[in-house]
């Protein structure tokens, strides 16, 4: 199998590399040091399986796996961890493969033999089982078998269409399959403000709130000339936010 090793510790990667060589029959296609790199390398190198640490600086293993699940043919993921009490219980419950550090050769071989694909549902349940269910650090945009990671702090607004949600950043626009309700729940009111049934705006990008010639309220934004309508239902909460 083609294996991608993901761990922030050099010696941990080294050990996996050595164990895999001893087991034989597998090709190590590359290494990554954090979640972002893992997603990039996966689309680049197309491995069959990822051996991925959960706790890493930047994007962690769980989030990286979530982004990967959007691929047409996602790789299998075997998590490695030193100690994560809550996550481990969730792994057991959801039958997700994991290896405890220090990693044993026979366990690693067995895990690779039966490695199976994860589902997004499994990952979400694991995420919720952790101490504090975490928001993602990135939004993943899928483009012809590729994943584009958009840092959440670059998002100006989410705009819902009939089927898709448009993600607007200073430079580009992307389409994702998600719902505003889910996004609002995940990223909370501190970062985003619901101004309309179809619009969720990053509070950091709001320049001002003004009245349009037609007499409705509008939000003007940094980094874009576009103005977004505030619906009557949300006008009160937007003004409350503006007052601080």
């Amino acid at each position, binding site marked *: 199998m083609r294996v991608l090793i993901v761990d922030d510790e*050099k*010696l*941990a990667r080294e050990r996996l590399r*050595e164990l895999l060589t001893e087991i034989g029959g597998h090709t190590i296609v590359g290494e990554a040091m954090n979640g972002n790199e893992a997603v990039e390398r996966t689309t680049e190198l197309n491995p069959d399986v990822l051996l991925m640490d959960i706790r890493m*600086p930047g994007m962690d293993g769980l989030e990286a796996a979530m982004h990967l699940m959007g691929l047409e043919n996602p790789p299998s993921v075997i998590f490695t961890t*030193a100690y994560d009490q809550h996550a481990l219980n969730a792994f057991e419950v959801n039958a997700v493969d994991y290896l405890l*550090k220090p990693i044993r050769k026979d366990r690693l071989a067995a895990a690779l033999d039966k490695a199976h694909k994860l589902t997004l549902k499994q990952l979400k349940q694991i995420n919720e089982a952790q101490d504090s269910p975490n928001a993602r*650090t990135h939004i993943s945009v899928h483009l012809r078998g590729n994943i584009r990671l958009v840092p*959440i*702090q670059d998002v100006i607004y989410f705009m819902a269409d009939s089927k898709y949600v448009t993600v607007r950043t200073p430079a580009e626009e992307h389409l994702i399959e998600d719902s505003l309700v889910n996004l609002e729940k995940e990223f909370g009111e501190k970062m985003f403000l619901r101004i309309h049934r179809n619009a969720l705006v990053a509070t950091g990008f709001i320049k001002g709130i003004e009245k349009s010639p037609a007499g409705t309220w509008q939000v003007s934004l940094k980094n874009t000339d576009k103005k977004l309508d505030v619906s009557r239902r949300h006008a009160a909460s937007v003004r409350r936010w503006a007052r601080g």
Partner: protein
Amino acid sequence: MESGSKIALSLLGRGIARTRSTLRALRGRIEERLFGAAAEDPAAAPDSGFLPDFCQGWTVFSVAVVAEILAIIIVLVSPQIPFAESRLGNLFLVSLFIQWIALTSAAALCGARRFLNRLSKLRAVALAYLMLLCVTWLVGEAALWALWLAGSIGSPQPEWNAYFHVQNLTVAALINAMALRYFIGRHQLRQRTLSEARAKVQALRSRIRPHFLFNTMNTIAALTRSAPAQAETAIENMADLVRIMLTDDENLVPVGNEIAIARKYLAIESLRLDNRLAVDWDVGKFPRKAVLPVLTLQPLLEHAIQCGVEPAPEGGRITVRLWEADERIHIEVTHPLPRPRRGARTPVPEADETALDNLRQRLETHYGTAAVLETNDEAGRLKVAVTLPTRGEEP
């Protein structure tokens, strides 16, 4: 005849021995009932005596107040004393007498406290009790003589002499028993609070984080193949660190020892974090007597690594400064504050303020208000500064 007396003697001897052992067992049981299980080691804590310090003004005042209350009760419930003119005169005489007994008792306990607290508790209680009864009898006798000298009674040994003493001793026996029971109870409560405080400090001690432990083991497993010598050093360092973390004693140790253990901890972490961890040391001169509680510096470094180095993909630089000035040890550890990512996962869940709060509480139990732990946010770096008295005096 002779053998008969021998048998009788040996029987008697055995009887005495048995009585002795029964008495010993009985004593043990009484002590257990009175003082709880801790009765057996009076040397466990130097100030474990159950008697309060009767040389202290506040204690003497309390004794006087209790004595006065007793005097008022006695005057209210007893008939007029023949040689007192009024109820008020009555109260005056009774107060004088009871205060005399009470204050003399306090003085006696003040003098005998050191001696009594050295004895086993049962002996101390019995001796104190007898002593207080003696004081009562002596003061009663002295009062009769005083009254006789003052001309209030015809003889220093009036016909109600015996009744007078029996009455005094009965009251004293009851009141003293109550007082001693109160002191024992208070002592037990204090001991319990003390051991609870000790347990709390132990709980606050820097513990081995499982994540750190297992990651280190994984690192060592990797090293045993590629660099056995490094693996050996790592195991030795880990053993020293774990040994100190597992000990319950909150000892004060020389600054040098604490720095050594901190360096061992950093050696382990830098194996794991590789070139992501950089540490600058600046250690000043310390007098040989400079001490600090064991595991003061290491938790500061652990906190810095967890909050400043681990969450950042590019790592970070920690600076450590230690110096001594004006009889105080100064410790300063600064670490970078990785830019908080909006919506970021909390990098390491347990790496919040609890580590510093725990250390702060431990320092407080050691030094009271004489130790200070402050955090300062300056230009993207967090500075944690600790100052403590150089010689580690207790509050």
